[in-house]
């Protein structure tokens, strides 16, 4: 029986891994209600998962397509404001808000891409930086919708018009979307579009000789990255229930970039690992240490140092550490065998 389950698990990798990961994450509210972990841990983990979704989009863009966006925070912020406006001000259903709040940033992203991607890949970084700053200015100035600096509020989502979620329910919804995004991402990078993106990143000459329309694929991967950012924004809004302009600054975009560099470029599990390190370690560990915990910018120093160390020792991200651990483990194991023989 046990063996059967194990075989099923192995033959359905990596879906089974992703779903198992989702099930483990879903147990967290239970642990909180049993009093085994702190109430605030749920908030920290939820935001880590939201940032994971956003970072997965950026990893598709950077790792697979070789493009950089510095506008992640802006598009995420746009998602928060849109969904807040649609659900709280207009009173429309959550599902509709979700679709519109992902679609509108995506369209704006595509328009940005249409202009900037025609020339060279790195113009996207400049254009997105500008768009992100414009968006932040819009969040401040259009105060009849956004409430300016005082920020905007929303409620936990109500699904299908009757299923009102609470804090735990919204957390489970976030887990669901993360697992969905992980599966979609895995499928995409292992299909012909994913290979086309990789080819484009590795050699534009080979890509166009093989019939890959570089401009179209750049736009496509940017559109996907933006929609993942906006999706993250929507989930953030309905979990944190509050958004304000200064939450969506360049620093956040750079932190998402750090997630990928530290965790693992071109790796789904690496992205999750990176998000836990960049957004988890400062909150969960650094703040509790003596002396270091009282330094204001400790998180920035930690991330900066980590980026340098990772680039030196694991240029493709910390996720590759597992191969070294495995190797050392094997070595130890084999030595044991030799001694016996």
């Amino acid at each position, binding site marked *: 029986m046990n063996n059967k389950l194990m075989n099923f698990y192995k033959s359905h990798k990596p879906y089974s891994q992703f779903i198992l990961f989702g099930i483990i994450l879903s147990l967290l509210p239970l642990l909180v209600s049993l009093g085994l972990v702190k109430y605030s841990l749920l908030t920290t983990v939820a935001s880590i998962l939201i940032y994971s979704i956003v970072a997965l989009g950026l990893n598709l863009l950077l790792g697979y397509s070789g493009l950089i966006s510095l506008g992640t925070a802006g598009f995420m912020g746009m998602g928060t404001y849109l969904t807040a406006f649609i659900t709280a001000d207009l009173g429309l259903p959550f599902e509709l808000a979700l679709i519109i709040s992902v679609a509108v940033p995506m369209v704006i992203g595509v328009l940005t891409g249409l202009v900037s991607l025609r020339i060279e890949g790195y113009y996207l970084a400049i254009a997105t930086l500008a768009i992100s700053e414009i968006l932040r200015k819009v969040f401040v100035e259009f105060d009849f919708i956004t409430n300016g600096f005082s920020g905007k509020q929303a409620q936990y989502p109500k699904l299908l018009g009757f299923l009102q979620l609470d804090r735990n329910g919204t957390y489970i919804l976030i887990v669901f979307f993360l697992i969905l995004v992980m*599966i*979609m991402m895995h*499928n*995409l990078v292992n*299909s*012909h*579009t*994913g*290979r*086309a993106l*990789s*080819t484009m*990143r*590795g*050699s534009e*000459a*080979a*890509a*166009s*000789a*093989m*019939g*890959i*329309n*570089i401009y179209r694929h750049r736009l*496509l991967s940017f559109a996907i990255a933006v929609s993942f950012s906006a999706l993250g924004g929507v989930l953030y809004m309905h979990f944190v229930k509050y958004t304000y302009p200064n939450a969506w600054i360049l620093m956040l975009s750079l932190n998402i970039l750090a997630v990928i560099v530290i965790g693992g470029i*071109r790796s789904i599990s690496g992205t999750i690992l990176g998000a836990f390190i960049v957004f988890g370690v400062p909150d969960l560990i650094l703040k509790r240490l003596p002396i270091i915990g009282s330094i204001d910018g400790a998180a920035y120093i930690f991330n900066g140092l980590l980026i340098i160390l990772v680039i030196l020792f694991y240029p493709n991200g910390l996720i590759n550490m597992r191969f070294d651990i495995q190797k050392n483990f094997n070595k130890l194991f084999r030595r044991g065998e030799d001694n016996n023989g």
Partner: protein
Amino acid sequence: MDNMPDKVLKVENLSIAFGGLKAVDNLSFDINEGEIFGLIGPNGAGKTTVFNCITQFYKPDNGDIYFRTNTGEVENLVGKKTHEIIGKGLVRTFQNIELIRELTVVENVMVGAHIEFKSSLFNQFFRLKKTRQEENRMRKRAEEILDHMGLSSIKDMLVAGQPYGVLKKIELARALMLNPKLIILDEPAAGLNDSETLSLVNIIKEIKTERNCSILLIEHDMKFVNGLCDRICAINFGKLLAIGTPGEIQENEQVQIAYLGKEDY
């Protein structure tokens, strides 16, 4: 209007200049169906530039490039987009191998059939039936080609770290995915040792006979070219020196001067 019976490619009065330098100067030649055609010339003669003009990586200043496409019609390639060329039935390899290090060998070969993949983004996101079928079909085709080249043992390995001769073969395999009418090979034997070259010669001959396609290749190595090509075109400084069978080209005085230098008496 078919102005080129039995021809697969016809280059007419091709010219391109970079700044003041005429890299290709009023060059004309044509390739018969089912022929292995060699383009030779000393370093800097403009051979790769000719290739880049044919495949529309460069836009020629002047001239026409007529190509008999998969459907049998004759089309002028000049002005087409680079990524449209492969769909006409013309595919190329590169002088400096352009494979993707992060993909496996078989995945790299599958990229060669990119334009035949039709499943939608939604299909791909959720790996629905259409995507799965398509992936399986193309993977099988890629594996058959690799098997034919004796590479099936490394098909699931990453391209990074494979020996040079193997990389050349993988690139050739990628070019075969769509059963092209004409394959353009940019210095296929450069950097190969003798046994690798021999194996490549056999593969190219097999491609010609089994797949009924024409081959245009650039090469430095005269021995390689003479043993393989049906006809040869020699150029220097972007200008045509001579076209003919390998024997004729070897006898040609101008070609000898270009290659060996002129003796002054």
